[in-house]
């Protein structure tokens, strides 16, 4: 058997070890990474913010709502996916709906979205892609599918008095292929698309 004082001594060693590791791994390491990040990749390290003459308008990585004060979608802007983050695209409260595949609430929500999106865009409910009907995992998904963007092009063009073909062409130009050609899914970044749209009009 070990003597009592050696067993107690392990706790003293443990405490000292934790203090040393905290200094190295909890303070020096993140500090060093922050310095390197801020020096070498300042844009990314600070949140990939998009600036305009009037200040930052958002982050290319964080989706935002294109709705009026009541949460009604504005036809002038391409709309992102439904969001479960707070009241929608609340970047301080990321998260998904966590509704299960057989949950009646989810089924009702999908059917409601289907009919309102169909009416909003003047398309058949069957034409609406899945990403437009479902909330993302983060609630901050900055992307929609190409089909979802193209489906909205006519409505946006009408609302802005632009030729539909021009808006569709703009969407086509904003479709991002899969990373390295085989990873993930093709996407359209909604903020970047809407910024390009605003630039076109201006």
């Amino acid at each position, binding site marked *: 058997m*070990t003597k009592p004082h*050696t067993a107690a001594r*392990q*706790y003293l*060693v443990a405490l*000292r070890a*934790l203090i*040393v*590791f*905290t200094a*190295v*791994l*909890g303070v020096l*390491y993140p500090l060093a*990474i*922050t310095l390197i*990040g801020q020096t*070498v990749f300042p844009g990314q390290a*600070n*949140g990939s*913010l998009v600036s305009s003459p009037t200040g*930052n308008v*958002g982050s290319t*990585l*964080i989706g*935002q*709502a294109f709705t*009026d004060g009541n949460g009604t979608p504005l036809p002038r802007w391409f709309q992102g*996916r439904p969001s479960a983050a707070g009241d929608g*695209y609340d*970047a*301080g409260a*990321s*998260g*998904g*709906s966590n*509704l*299960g*595949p*057989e*949950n*009646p609430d*989810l089924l009702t929500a*999908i059917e409601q979205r289907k009919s309102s999106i169909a009416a909003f865009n003047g398309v058949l409910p069957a034409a*609406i*892609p*899945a*990403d437009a009907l*479902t*909330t*993302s*995992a983060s609630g*901050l*998904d900055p*992307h929609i599918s190409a089909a979802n963007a193209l489906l909205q092009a006519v409505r946006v063009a009408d609302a802005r008095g632009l030729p539909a073909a021009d808006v569709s062409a703009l969407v086509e130009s904003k479709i991002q292929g*899969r990373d390295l050609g*085989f*990873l993930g*899914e093709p996407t359209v970044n909604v903020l970047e698309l809407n910024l390009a749209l*605003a630039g076109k009009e201006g």
Partner: protein
Amino acid sequence: MNAWFAIAPVLTVVLVLVVVHRPLGDYMASVFLSVNHLRIERGVYRLIGVDARSQQTWQSYLRGVLAFSAVGVLLVYALQRAQSVLPYSLGFPAVPEGLSFNTAASFVTNTNWQSYSPDVTLGYAVQLVGLSVQNFVSAAVGIAVAMALVRAFAARRSGTIGNFWVDLTRGALRVLLPLSAVAAIVLIAGGVIQNVSGATEVTTLTGAVQSIPGGPTASQEAIKILGTNGGGFFNANSAHPFENPTAWTNLFQIVLMLMIPFSLPRTFGTVVGDRGQGAAILAAMAGIFVVSLTALTLLEAGGAGSAPVAAGGALEGKEQRFGVLASTFFATTSTMTSTGAVNSMHDSYTSLGGMLPLLNMMLGEVAPGGVGSGLYGMLILAVITVFIAGLLVGRTPEYLGKKIGPREIKLASLYILVTPTLVLTGTALSFAVPAIRTDVESTSILNPGLHGLTEVLYAFTSASNNNGSAFAGLTADTPWLNTALGVAMLIGRFLPIVFVLALAGALAAQDSVPATTGTLPTNRPLFVGLLVGITIIITALTYFPVLALGPLAEGLQ
């Protein structure tokens, strides 16, 4: 769904791991066998007051593990309770007692279950000084215990199994720190944030105000993934665009999760002097992994169930940039290791698809498992496999020249009983005690019906196996779940470690027996097949009834 886009990312990861596991496995073998100390390590040993040359008995080694972890729980608990007076706390108040206990237990046990929502609970001080540090050291503890067991197989008539403080320091400073520093910088390049500037207010295109969060995310993300921890800087975890911005960072994170666990079998083979032994363990791990990944991908791509059919695809709780394929690859990786990070919400998976992350954890997270814990879990199963094979042919079983006698098999058996006991007892108590049941059903469970049972089962499976992923609709920040899951995490981590170190002590003390014609060769495909079979049979027999009540019943409706 084009099969190429499902297979090409997997092939890429396989290729990277094939290239990386040899040098990394050999490097780790040299790190944990070396008799030389780096200058910085000698400084650490002086500061903490240990003689690095001294060797510990298994009991002493275990006391080191437990003392270090106990101090860790106390510090993380205290930091959360004192949050209101700490700098860089973003104005968040002290974390309540029950939640602080749960979170402290969670991060020290390498589980990283999150009963809290980080976005609205924790400032930078607790995240860095408390959680980031435990991300490193809990992973280093796992590697240390695994290496103690591996060295015991190679030892002859030894009363000692190594020095815990040396193993801990080397694991943290020579393996985890350099890899995570590189990984963090790659992640920043991909768009993961790393700043201490708090939230930035922006005026959106429609004139609304959006508050874009900040934080030292990349430094924590790297070790969260590499150390198979899984606790997100943000509530949405690796689904959050600031944690996992692109499909390529997603693949990078998958590689990081698998890198150390798939290299450790090589380390094992090198240390015991027969790389074929390591290759056999690796083959068993890889085989189970590929089968599970294939099943989950087919189920999610199939998109069965009311809501997925209505929406035209199982995209609820999945990010557009990942789609189904990059989500299922990540989910399988995260639950086959002990990471528990999520890039999609498992609660919203199809009924049968959601069962697979659950099954992955129930397998004991051995394919390839958490850093260290995966290897020692698989070696325990290997001991059981040679024992059962020995019974079949009526010979005393041996593994790597060590006799598997009554003491060894008792320890191995106790090891595999711990987590099922915790999972099934915890789930049963949640529904059997009337007061708890009322609380669980009214407060905790989100989804009605069978799915709600699965949420609770998932929580206890995740906590007891130290995974940390969730069917996250479950509100776990309640007195019952904070306490029960906290206790499950602590017992689920440290009781198995007691048995592993006791086994290491028993094996190290033995001399080596020469192989005879009756010895089962443990570096051949036959053994790999037996090992996979035993792993699956043990899990299936234990959990089939409860799975039949939850996800199976829901999926077959």
